[in-house]
């Protein structure tokens, strides 16, 4: 039995102790959670995906809330992809399964097909470097959403850019151009690709069209990056030709662009599409300034 002095311990004291305990416990949870998060890494939540029998199964389990679940999974895709990009990872092995499940849950979630295919097709470290999986994803999207011409645009794009399969690209652009609401340039693109697939001019046309009527900021920026890379590539080629001409005419190699300006070959010091001046390296070749935001690697 408690003695009377024990049971007379002020209720106030007990309350304060309880509050303190409560606070300490809740605060103590934070470091524990953080350390678990740290160890598990960005694969948390996404890792389960490998073990799910299929997205269709999950769809049945979700009892009518598949739309919500699809949104949740799409958020996980973005989270997963972003985490991998931040870590400069070259492996995106859960991306495919995650996208599969997302689109199984909601076959009409267009953003999953469109962005998902970009994530999949882009070469590492910008993406998973799996253009064939990207195509498969898009084809599933087309089956579920046959009237969406944009998906054909994405298909054509991957054939053109990542696989360099110009006949297939042309066919895709053509098929897309026949869908309701398709823009005119799809047909133009089909023709151009069929005729002059490998040429930079065709690529520039594609990218500038995308940049012009992209509804989304990220897509537009991506297109502009590609455009700048193409322009820079062309300029570098032209500049190299000019320098070769100068060298053969003057009999000695050019040391800097200034010499070319003085000799009248150039009007001003050449700048790349992002406004940063080009560099003439020790071997006499034109290079991009390291500070430039142009990414020539996009063209590979």
């Amino acid at each position, binding site marked *: *039995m*408690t003695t009377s002095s024990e*049971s007379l311990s002020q*209720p106030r004291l*007990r*309350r304060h102790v*309880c*509050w303190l*305990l*409560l606070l300490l*416990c*809740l605060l*103590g*949870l*934070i470091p*524990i*959670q953080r*350390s*678990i998060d740290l*160890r*598990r890494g960005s694969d*948390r*939540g996404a890792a*389960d995906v*490998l*073990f*799910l029998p299929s997205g269709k199964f999950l769809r049945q389990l979700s009892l009518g809330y598949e739309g919500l679940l699809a949104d*949740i999974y799409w*958020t*996980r895709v*973005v*989270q997963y992809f*972003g985490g991998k990009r931040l870590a400069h990872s070259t492996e995106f092995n859960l991306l495919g399964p995650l996208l599969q499940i997302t689109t199984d849950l909601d076959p009409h979630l267009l953003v999953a097909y469109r962005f998902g295919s970009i994530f999949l097709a882009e070469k590492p470290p910008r993406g998973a470097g799996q253009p064939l999986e990207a195509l498969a994803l898009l084809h599933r999207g087309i089956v579920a959403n046959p009237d969406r011409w944009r998906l054909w645009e994405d298909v054509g794009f991957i054939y053109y850019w990542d696989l360099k399969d110009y006949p297939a690209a042309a066919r895709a652009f053509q098929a897309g151009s026949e869908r309701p609401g398709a823009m005119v340039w799809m047909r133009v693109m089909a023709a151009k690709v069929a005729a002059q697939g490998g040429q930079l001019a065709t690529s520039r046309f594609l990218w500038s069209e995308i940049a012009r009527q992209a509804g989304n900021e990220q897509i537009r920026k991506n297109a502009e990056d590609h455009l700048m890379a193409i322009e820079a590539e062309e300029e570098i080629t032209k500049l190299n030709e000019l320098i070769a001409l100068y060298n053969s005419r003057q009999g000695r190699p050019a040391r800097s662009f200034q010499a070319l300006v003085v000799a009248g070959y150039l009007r001003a010091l050449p700048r790349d599409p992002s406004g940063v001046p080009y560099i003439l390296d020790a071997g006499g070749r034109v290079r991009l300034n390291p500070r430039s935001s142009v990414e020539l690697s996009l063209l590979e």
Partner: protein
Amino acid sequence: MRVATIALHTFKESVREKVLYNLVAFALLLIGAAILFGSISVGVEQIILITLGLTSISVFGLLIAIFIGIDLVSKEIERRTIYNILSKPVSRPEFILGKYLGLLLTLFVNTAIMTAGFYAALFYQKRALLLDDLRFLGAVYFILLELAIVVGIAVVFSCISTPVLSAVYTFCLYVIGNFSADLRAFGQETQSALLGTLCDVLYYLLPNFGDFNVISQVAHAEKIPGYLWLGNSLYALLYIAALLGMAVLIFEEREFR
């Protein structure tokens, strides 16, 4: 110890609840049925049995935790059987603690029964049990930790609300707790700093059940990472302590009109 007396009594009372038997029986039935499902698709029989079996234990364990938790605390408060207990030399914290421990014991016994049924089904399917099969106990342990937290939540809500609402709130909190990682991801993706902070706070405040689910891992014979044992156990311990503290604080002030 009065706490032990109340705990044992709570356990004995729960044993008399008919619904409990129904739930456990249904769980065992489902585990048995899992053997049938497995025989349909070749090569994955064991995986299906394990996944379905452990999931059944988890789901029915949850139902038991909520149902018993509400029945034995919220209903007692509502039907005023509590007057008799509180007028004895029993302090309110002792009452809450005793109730919680009794519920925990009930949960443990029921989970043990379901786990035994699970292993029986496994034995039936494989014709032998290996030492390696003990790894499923790890998944069950985490399920128990999870449900211990749920019972704590049920007790807290019982001190505030009516039986039905307490059950509803507890269930909702369980569902939210399973998606807390997504909540945080949402907060990180959003542009608003305020929303991001709010999501972070909620992430740490709400129970985080995602880490307790290792069913897929054990089904695919993956090892449960070592840090998870300690991490989850500590997390559960602290969270339960916080919940009981909250329950005591609320219950002390509660008046019985």
